């Protein structure tokens, strides 16, 4: 009997030490609190999530939410524009602490990064001119479309084999959504595949010359990306987002940018 209780005691001690060691290794949250800064990496040309306003300042829905989260954690938010295609290098190299810029949560990204809880619903949609005959995805047969290269729109179109096969030619890839929409304006293509959130921003900004098809290409969710090992930091940000959803701050920021509360944190 005595042996058993000694064994149990030793086992308990070992477990305590091991779990203590695991906690001690993940000092991601502590590091941020110590240097009193959370460095946010974003592509400064992605309205309305994070972009440059006419005075050269950085604004956006994600920026506002991140500012609030940082304030609640007691740290300063440092905005660091990055090149989107280099985001993994910037994150893993320690130049930024998180990627917070309307980043789509995908299984691949969940493997290489620590993702937060999803906070916004998005979808890849087709944008056409207001007077276009195209009403559904099936109407795209024999037509052309443009998209931003390397974006989730490119992935969504590639995944939709029927659409891809029915197009007149391969999708035209542009460096920018603005250029893709310009091609649409000029009649160079019949539709543009892009995020519905960005599409609505441009429609609100440039007038109702465009129409978004009701039928979506692919639904998706936005999440914040952290280094794979930074679980403590991810958990802290998650907790803060939930807190903000509960006390209505998140809804307020959403209404300011989108006219209503479209966040999904509260629903979890």
């Amino acid at each position, binding site marked *: 009997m005595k042996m058993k209780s000694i064994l149990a005691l030793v086992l308990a001690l070992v477990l305590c030490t091991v779990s203590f060691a695991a906690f001690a290794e993940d000092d991601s949250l502590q590091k941020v609190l110590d240097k009193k800064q959370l460095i946010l990496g974003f592509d400064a040309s992605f309205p309305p999530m994070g972009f*440059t306003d006419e005075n050269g300042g950085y604004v956006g829905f994600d920026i506002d939410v991140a500012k609030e989260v940082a304030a609640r954690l007691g740290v300063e938010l440092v905005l660091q524009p990055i090149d989107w295609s280099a985001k993994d290098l910037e994150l893993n*190299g320690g130049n930024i602490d998180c990627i917070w810029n309307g980043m789509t949560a995908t299984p691949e990204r969940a493997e290489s990064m620590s993702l937060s809880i999803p906070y916004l619903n998005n979808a890849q949609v087709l944008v056409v001119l207001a007077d276009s005959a195209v009403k559904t995805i099936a109407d795209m047969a024999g037509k052309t479309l443009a998209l931003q290269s390397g974006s989730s729109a490119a992935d969504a179109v590639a995944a939709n084999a029927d659409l891809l096969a029915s197009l007149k030619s391969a999708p035209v890839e542009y460096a920018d959504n603005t250029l893709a929409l310009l091609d649409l304006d000029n009649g160079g293509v019949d539709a543009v595949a892009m995020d519905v959130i960005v599409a609505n921003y441009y429609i609100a900004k440039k007038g109702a010359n465009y129409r978004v098809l009701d039928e979506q290409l692919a639904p998706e969710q936005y999440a914040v990306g952290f280094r794979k090992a930074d679980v403590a930091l991810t958990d802290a940000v998650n907790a803060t987002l939930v807190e903000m959803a509960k006390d209505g701050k998140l809804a307020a920021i959403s209404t300011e940018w989108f006219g209503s509360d479209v966040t999904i944190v509260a629903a979890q």
Partner: protein
Amino acid sequence: MQYLNDPNLLWKLLMQLASGMGTSLSIFFFTLLFSLPLGMAVALGRMSKRRWISAPVSFYILIMRGTPLMLQLFTVYFFLPKLVGPIPRLQSTLIAFSLNYAAYFAEIYRGGIMSIDRGQHEAAQVLGFTKAQTFLQIILPQTLKRVMLPISNEVITLVKDTSLATAIAVSELFLVAKNATSASGSVEPLFIAGLFYLAMNTVVTVFFNWLIKRFDYYRT
């Protein structure tokens, strides 16, 4: 025509583009400041009779001219810090650009030096000049006159290459224009930025035309 219709908005954009141009110009001037002399050193190394100098230098020139500048930029900014600690973005840009352009300038200098005919070397030898004196007082001045036009080519290319710094998010002219384009949904900022680049290169071209004329005091 968003910007052309709204003078206030246009002015704000021009201010932003001007500040971006300031960064582009600082990349431009500092890169030239480091790479022009470094290029001469590399050229001399390349022409050295000693294999243990000329072989590594040839390899360096091969790598710098043979790989994309953007890749070199990534390597300096993301991977060099693993060896020597964090390097800020602008400094990384200057290091990568200077090393790259030094290689190109080195080959231009080498071409110029080798094109000076043997008569000059022989005359100098006869007159009792040492090797160093020959190089500094006879060969080098003639070389610089000869290479001015090829150098001006590279300098003009450099003005436009500064836009590659956007790969590591340095806030120079092209990135500012790109952000403004995305925020406004209009491509005017990109075209206006193009005018800025054209203006810079016009200054460079005029300068070199003046310089070449100035040094055309005799024919060799």
